[in-house]
């Protein structure tokens, strides 16, 4: 993907990351946690123009849940509340054992997509999400067995190296999510994004995720570079400085407006499936 794709008006895929596993209602009262809340948020985001919803599951207390059963509740609720949106399950889970990490892949039906973290990252002062090559391989093999498209989560340049090393094992096109933010994430700056995009294989589709205040500028830049965007309360709870966002859909609406101004149509779920060969 490239600037030529922007000039050609290639459709942009908008992913809505609704919930996440790091923050909850203690950080934002409107962050969806229950299956019903997540489903309602998914429906609002689809209505606003999102073609993919990235899903996590929670316990009733707001704590993280990884079990197939809880993901089944969430994904059933989302499927019932939406028309055609592409469902992407998270397999991330700092501190959680590998066996649990695979459980979100085992819903019936399987999700069309799932995240695949490409390497380690730090959390707080003492936690590391290890994501060893063995873990990545195990999750990827299960995704292939179940026909699930991986979204490669590239938290920094080293993870891009890891992605390039397995690109021949991926069904085309590889779908790479470039992530920018603090700590062990890629330095959140336009220069970093340009560098990362310049190293991608020509046949790759890429998505951009910028944490907190970097969400708006870096996703906008992605649209100019022919990439796709991920927005939502998982990654950013502020609509602008000092102002909490109203909802996930509010972020999607803004992304759609920007895409429209830039002359890139927003992909329907069906078009997103074509672009990503789901």
């Amino acid at each position, binding site marked *: 993907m490239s600037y030529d794709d922007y000039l050609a008006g290639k459709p942009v895929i908008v992913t809505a990351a609704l919930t996440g596993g*790091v923050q909850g209602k203690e950080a934002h009262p409107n962050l969806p946690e229950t299956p019903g809340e997540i489903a309602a948020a998914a429906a609002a985001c689809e209505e606003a123009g999102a073609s993919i919803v990235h899903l996590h599951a929670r316990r009733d207390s707001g704590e993280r849940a990884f079990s197939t059963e809880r993901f089944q509740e969430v994904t059933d609720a989302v499927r019932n509340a939406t028309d055609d949106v592409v469902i992407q399950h998270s397999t991330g889970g700092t501190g959680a054992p590998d066996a649990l990490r695979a459980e979100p892949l085992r819903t019936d039906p399987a999700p069309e997509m799932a995240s695949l973290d490409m390497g380690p990252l730090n959390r707080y002062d*003492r936690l590391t999400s290890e994501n060893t090559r063995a873990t990545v391989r195990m999750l990827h093999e299960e995704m292939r067995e179940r026909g699930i498209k991986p979204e490669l989560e590239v938290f920094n340049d080293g993870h891009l190296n890891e992605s390039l090393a397995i690109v021949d094992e991926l069904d085309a096109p590889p779908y790479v999510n470039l992530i920018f933010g603090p700590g062990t994430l890629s330095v959140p700056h336009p220069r970093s994004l340009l560098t990362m995009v310049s190293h991608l294989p020509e046949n790759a589709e890429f998505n951009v995720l910028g944490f907190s205040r970097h969400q708006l500028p870096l996703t906008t830049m992605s649209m100019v570079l022919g990439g796709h965007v991920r927005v939502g309360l998982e990654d950013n709870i502020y609509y602008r400085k000092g102002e909490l966002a109203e909802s996930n859909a509010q972020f999607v609406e803004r992304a759609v407006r920007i895409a429209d101004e830039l002359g890139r149509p927003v992909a329907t779920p069906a078009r997103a499936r074509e672009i990503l060969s789901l």
Partner: protein
Amino acid sequence: MTDRCPYLDYRRKAGGQSFDAARPYCTAAEEFVQPMRADICAGRYGLDHATDCEIYLAHTDDTTVDVAGATPDGNESREVDDE
């Protein structure tokens, strides 16, 4: 599974926030706990507050509070180093 943190509580209300279901609350930090931190508080997945939680370590004198939240004689202890 390791023991849960002695500072972990589950509350519906605190500090001006209220929720439909009881949520993990850290009595050391005096705030509701983020979901990922709660796994440390609850001792899930082999995580241990005594080694993995900087809040616990900053607030605890190891001679007065053990990881089970009780002193060696079995009495509950809420002795906290408030710095």
